[in-house]
Each structure stands twice: as structure tokens, then as C-alpha cells.
């Protein structure tokens, strides 16, 4: 065991840079996942088969294939016929898209949990579909699924080091770069590993508390 605290001190400034990038990817990725997921969930309830079927097929495909390969696809294939994106941007889109297929299931369960009478009441008041969704169904559905969405944010946090592989300097990326410059891998990777547990554990406690408050 040759642990050296000086190396830890030396790594710390870059670690905090990495934390910032991780949080950035996490916040932007979550926003994308929450929005896209809602779009998928509503599209999957559409009465038109040409909307419902392709969306179901695509989300099923994205959910059951590895995020890492999807990141490679976004990073190497998409620029061939689209805009070239920075590694972080690619990572945000990859994480957001991948997890949107999970949040879609969460929203679906939440929407299914809204009692049928609420839909009937909206029909009886002859609310247009947009008002039915925004004023009646979604406020009730989303309230119940907030803790489940939070769980996926934590899951996304644990998948965020994957964006280091396409070259984004988040926590693991910084540790890897530091390691290959100084040949010290033990300290930076250990620090990063502990950081993930230190962030994820209180976050999951917080979500359990939320769950008790919001879900009756």
C-alpha cells in the first residue's frame, strides 16, 4: 500500500473541475430526460397508431442497448451527417436520451395512476385535450412520480463517468488524465470512487424522505 496524501492534494483542484462538469452533465441530462420522457409517455398514449408504434419501438430499442455504444454512435456517426458536438454536449444528449426512455416508463405509471374519474370529469367539462393534460392529469401524475424521477437522477450520476470515454473531463476523465500524466492512478481514482458514494448516498436518503412526503 503506497498511498500518498500529497498526490491527493495535488489532484484536488482538478477534481473540483471534474465535479463541476459532472454536475453540469447531470443537470442538463436530467432536464433533457424529464422533458423527452414526458413527450414519449404522452406519445405512447396517442390514439394514432403511427405515433404510438414508432415511439414505443424506438424507446424500447434505446432502453435495451448500452449507453456506451449510444455515446459512440452520437460522437462518431452523427457528425458525419449533422453538427459536430463537443464531448460534453454529446454526453448530455446521450445521457438525456437514454434516461428519457426510463423516465417515460415512470411518467406512464404516474399517468396510469390518475383515477379514471378525472379523465371523465375533464370530458364532462369539455376541456380541450391540452387543458386536460396540463391542468388535470399531469399535476396529479407528476407529483407522485417525483421520487422515482429522483432515483433515475442518481442512476444517471452513476452512469455519468461514461462520458469520460468520449473525452469529456468530468470526475473520472480528470482522474484518468491526471493518472496518465503523473503515473499515479491509485489516489485520483480512489478519490473519485469515494466521491460518487458520498454524493449518491445522501441523495438517495433525500429521495426516500421525499417519497414519504409526496406519495400518499
Amino acid at each position, binding site marked *: 500500500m503506497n498511498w500518498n496524501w500529497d498526490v491527493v492534494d495535488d489532484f484536488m483542484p482538478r477534481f473540483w473541475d471534474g465535479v463541476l462538469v459532472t454536475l453540469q452533465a447531470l443537470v442538463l441530462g436530467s432536464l433533457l430526460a424529464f422533458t423527452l420522457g414526458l413527450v414519449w409517455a404522452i406519445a405512447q398514449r396517442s390514439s394514432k397508431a403511427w405515433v404510438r408504434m414508432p415511439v414505443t419501438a424506438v424507446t424500447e430499442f434505446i*432502453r*435495451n442497448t*448500452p449507453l456506451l455504444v449510444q455515446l459512440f454512435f452520437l460522437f462518431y456517426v452523427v457528425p458525419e451527417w449533422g453538427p459536430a458536438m463537443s464531448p460534453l454536449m454529446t454526453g448530455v444528449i446521450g445521457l438525456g436520451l437514454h434516461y428519457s426512455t426510463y423516465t417515460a416508463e415512470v411518467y406512464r405509471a404516474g399517468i396510469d395512476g390518475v383515477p379514471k374519474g378525472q379523465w371523465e370529469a375533464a370530458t364532462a367539462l369539455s376541456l380541450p385535450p391540452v387543458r386536460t393534460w396540463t391542468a388535470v392529469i399531469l399535476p396529479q401524475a407528476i407529483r407522485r412520480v417525483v421520487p422515482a424521477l429522483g432515483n433515475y437522477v442518481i442512476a444517471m450520476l452513476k452512469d455519468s463517468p461514461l462520458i469520460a470515454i468520449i473525452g469529456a473531463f468530468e470526475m473520472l476523465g480528470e482522474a484518468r488524465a491526471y493518472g496518465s500524466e503523473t503515473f499515479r492512478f491509485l489516489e485520483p481514482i480512489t478519490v473519485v470512487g469515494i466521491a460518487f458514494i458520498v454524493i449518491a448516498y445522501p441523495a438517495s436518503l433525500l429521495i426516500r424522505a421525499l417519497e414519504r412526503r409526496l406519495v400518499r
Partner: protein
Amino acid sequence: MTWGLWESYMLPGIWITIQVTVYSAALAAAVSFVVGILRSSPLWIVRFLSGAYFEIFRGASALVFMFWLFFALPIAFGWQLVPMWAGVLALGLTYGAYGSEVVRGALAAVSPAQREAGIALSFTRMQRLRRIELPQAWPEMVPPFNNLAIELLKGTALVSVISVADMTFAANLIRFTTNESAPIYTLLLVMYFVLAFLITRGMRLVERKAKAGIGQAPPPGGGLLGGLRRRTKTADPVTGTAGAGTPGGNQ
């Protein structure tokens, strides 16, 4: 992509992916059962340690742990793992933690009267587990294990970054050689999807057998396009938290 590339890179890669999946699934299953059972032990210290294992590995990132095993462990203790075993160990221990929650939840869902009957017949704790609780909890575990197995299969792509020559590694090599990224990555995604599909089919058979074993009706088939994942009430495979009670926690 030519036949030569396919034969020399991709076919061995597929075999490596299958091997990594099977080995880490076996390790994860062993860990799930041991930790899941110990988490309801009467001894508080055993409960505490297995609970700590669950919380730590659920909070840890599989990729970071794999990197740690690959880069830091040799420096720290002088143990150099073969890359494939570093990958298998990281995946097995991480997904084993998620699986332990599945086992714990399914055991807790067995009706208390069953356990009490076992006590009344003066079964030992081991006998109760083996003869009464596990056989009844097992069919409940299969659908969440199916979802976890798909997550594990997706996780095996990570071993490519510690230079294990799996499908993803082979695809990267082929991209370097042919400089055509679109066909190869599309094909790679499709191959993972097909493997996930095969896992689901296999697990359906297991579930059918398990349900028949305790005299329950087989689950509805769902058809070919019924989706790969089973919606379960016991546990959420990605977050590892119990899903019961939260509508969204169901997968």
C-alpha cells in the same frame, strides 16, 4: 465491413461479451442471494454489514469501480487482475448489490404465516429458507432478475474500456480499420438488442417453470412485441430501490 474483419474481430467479440455476461451474472446471482438473505439476519452486525455492502455498491459507479480494480488495485496491493476478471468482478459485485434488494424484497413478500408454520414444525432457519421461503419467493424474483440481466448485458460494454476484446471493442477496432462508423455502430446496437431479446425469452421460460412449480398460472405471454422488460412490483433494477408503493418505481 468484410468477412475477414467480421471473422477475426466481431465473432470472438460476441463470444467474449457472452462469456462476460454469463460469468458476471453468475457472480451477481451468488452475491444477490447471500447478501439478500443476510440482510434479514437476526444478528444486527450481519444485517449492518450486508446493508452497508448494499448501500456502498449501489452508490458506486460500476465504471469507476472497474477502473479502480484495473488501475488502482495493482498499485495499492500488488494484485494484477486479468482485465476480463476485473470487469466481471466489478459488474458482478455492483449488480449483485441491486439483486440483493430483489431477493430481500421477494423474501419479505412471502406470507408470514408460511414462516410461522415452519417455526411451528420446528424447522431450523436454514430448513425454512430452503424448503419454505425461497421456493415461494423465487417466482417473484424472476421478472426483476430479467430486467437486471438486461442491465448487466448493457453494462458489459464497459469492459471494452479496460481493453477486454468484447463486441464494443471489436466495433471500435473495425471503425479504425474501415473508417465507416455508421454501419458498424448500428449493427452493434442491433446485436446488443438481439442478445437482450434472447435473455428475455430465456427468462420467460424460467418464470413459466417457476410459477408452475408452486402451482400458479403461467404469466401472460405478451407476444413477440410485448417489450423486453417485465413490469415488477418488487424492485427497480436500475436504482435498486424497492418500487412498491411508488407508481413510478415499477419497472
